């Protein structure tokens, strides 16, 4: 065979490199997908064992108020009612989002519409820095500042939903703010110019034009903040009091899914009911993060259709 023909028919060095590189990339990406699948499989298999293996009624699990998996109630059924934790988690998440939203959107409007120069110079770096502050630091501040202040003002121990709300509010504020800024900046400049040219004041422009066209982005920012608040563990665990009781008011010790999980998982034996019940809590967390994900997608799709 002549050398030219041979070199044309042989697989070139480049082609080999190409194949190897492609395989390498494929390997990395499959690893990630595999990990996601494994997380779902393991959390679900342990979390569902409460219902299949230990025969706990799903409805009872979600609605009963007594959480003490080691003991049994008068009917001989273990006391695994997760309602206090579910309510606690939702309450702190919703309250934190309610408090954070006006602040975050206000700050975002300030940065994009009112005083972009000062906003970008001072507010933006500060929020970016705060996104990176570890959650234990927020928890520590909550424990040493927020809880004593609440104790002074309202009596009791100071631990509870209110303290958790406050800590989460400060925690999600930077995230929601910087995402809101992105949403507002995405509004085309000519929207504002058209509105101002019609004689609208700056506030009218912001309220009637800018905010409305940025609504999907702002909603995404809020849902994202809520997802973060719902899954936050240690900062909340440090200030909420960790009593698996229905919260009677905002300053009585309560608990969230994450706080009971972090407290309990090390003290239970693998495969026991106590342990499985905790995994069921983890499963609820997992499903809720899926719900938040879905919400963000729905909002994105709706927003995309309008423009």
């Amino acid at each position, binding site marked *: 065979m002549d050398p030219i023909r041979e070199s044309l028919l042989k697989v070139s060095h*480049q*082609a080999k*490199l*190409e194949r190897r*590189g*492609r395989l390498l*990339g494929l*390997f*990395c*990406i499959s690893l*990630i*997908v595999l*990990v*996601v*699948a494994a*997380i779902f499989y*393991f*959390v679900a298999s342990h979390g569902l064992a409460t219902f299949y293996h230990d025969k706990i009624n799903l409805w009872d699990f979600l609605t009963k108020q007594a959480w003490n998996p080691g003991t049994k109630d008068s009917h001989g059924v273990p006391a695994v009612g997760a309602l206090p934790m579910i309510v606690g988690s939702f309450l702190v998440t919703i309250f934190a989002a309610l408090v954070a939203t006006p602040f975050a959107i*206000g*700050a975002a409007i*300030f*940065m994009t519409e*009112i*005083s972009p120069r000062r906003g970008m110079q*001072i*507010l933006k770096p*500060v*929020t*970016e*820095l*705060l996104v*990176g*502050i*570890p*959650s234990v*630091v927020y*928890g*520590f*501040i909550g424990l*040493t500042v927020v809880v004593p202040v609440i104790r002074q003002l309202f009596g009791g121990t100071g631990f509870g939903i209110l303290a958790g709300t406050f800590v989460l509010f*400060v925690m999600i*504020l930077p995230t929601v*703010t910087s995402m809101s800024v992105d949403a507002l900046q995405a509004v085309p400049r000519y929207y504002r110019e058209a509105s101002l040219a019609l004689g609208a*004041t700056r*506030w*009218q422009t*912001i309220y009637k034009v800018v905010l409305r066209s940025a609504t999907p982005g702002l909603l995404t920012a809020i849902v994202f903040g809520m*997802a973060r608040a719902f*899954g936050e*563990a*240690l900062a909340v*665990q440090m200030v909420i009091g960790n009593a698996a009781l229905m919260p009677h008011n905002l300053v009585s010790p309560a608990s969230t899914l994450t706080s009971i*999980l972090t407290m309990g*998982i*090390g003290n239970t034996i693998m495969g026991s009911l106590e342990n499985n019940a905790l995994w069921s809590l*983890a499963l609820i967390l997992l499903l809720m*993060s*899926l719900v*938040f*994900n879905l919400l963000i997608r729905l909002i994105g799709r709706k927003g995309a259709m309008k423009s």
Partner: protein
Amino acid sequence: MNVKQQDKLATGVLYTIASLIILVLASLLAFILIQGLPRVTWHFLTTPARSFEAGGGIGIQLFNSFYLLVLAMLISVPLSLGAGIYLSEYAKKNWLTSLIRTSIEILSSLPSVVVGLFGFLIFVIQFKFGFSILSGALVLTVFNLPLLTRNVEESLASISSMQREAGLALGLSRWETVTRIIVPEALPGITTGMILGAGRVFGEAAALIYTAGQSAPALDFTNWNPFYIASPLNPLRPAETLAVHIWKINSEGIMPDAVAVSAGASAVLIIAVLLFNLSARWFGQHLYQKMTSSGKKGA
């Protein structure tokens, strides 16, 4: 009230909100730094922690944090590079790719406790690594991979397609084009993302409580053989990190000077995060000048 007055009022309210936020955030930083910085001495940074008496330091925890960070980044950087390159350069637009993207998105939004519990189940129990640095590093990899991958993908996607065409026109394979032309040009963005990811890993605690453990056994800083049990480099020893330490001493409450120690440790954490942030910016720009022909003359 007419519209002009409304406008004034709204502007006033917005100014108040903005200054309130700055006030809250500034007092937060000031509180930590004022409470913490006086504690941060060389002695504090190098002595081991004490459980039942005052005067302990954070030496071992600080070392653990950095060692864990290095290990986690060693595993996650190559993986995320490979995955990011695949997604941006090779993946076709079909249902499989969108499934991959969805799963990465889901992984990035999972609560870190859930990731930590998964790590506990897999690495600590199934693989029998025990509470160890190795388990911790693997969990941090899982925790960090989706964000790093997305960052790599976005950085690569922002490079103009002319560069790819030029590479292919010169007879390079696609892989060579990516590794020799596209990645170097995207390096500033990739590095910035990696450093920010490192900052996130440095402060993570929830994922580590049940993987890297909550105890910091004494280390022998004279023996660096990785197989020796008290060696600082041994990847199979339990390793409480700085963030976990803050959580633990506050929720246990047996250390008499827990508040002071956590304030000091928090200050160290915040300064570290600040340094990560600043160096991400500086390093990105520096690399950009070095790797491409822009900027400095004769480079």
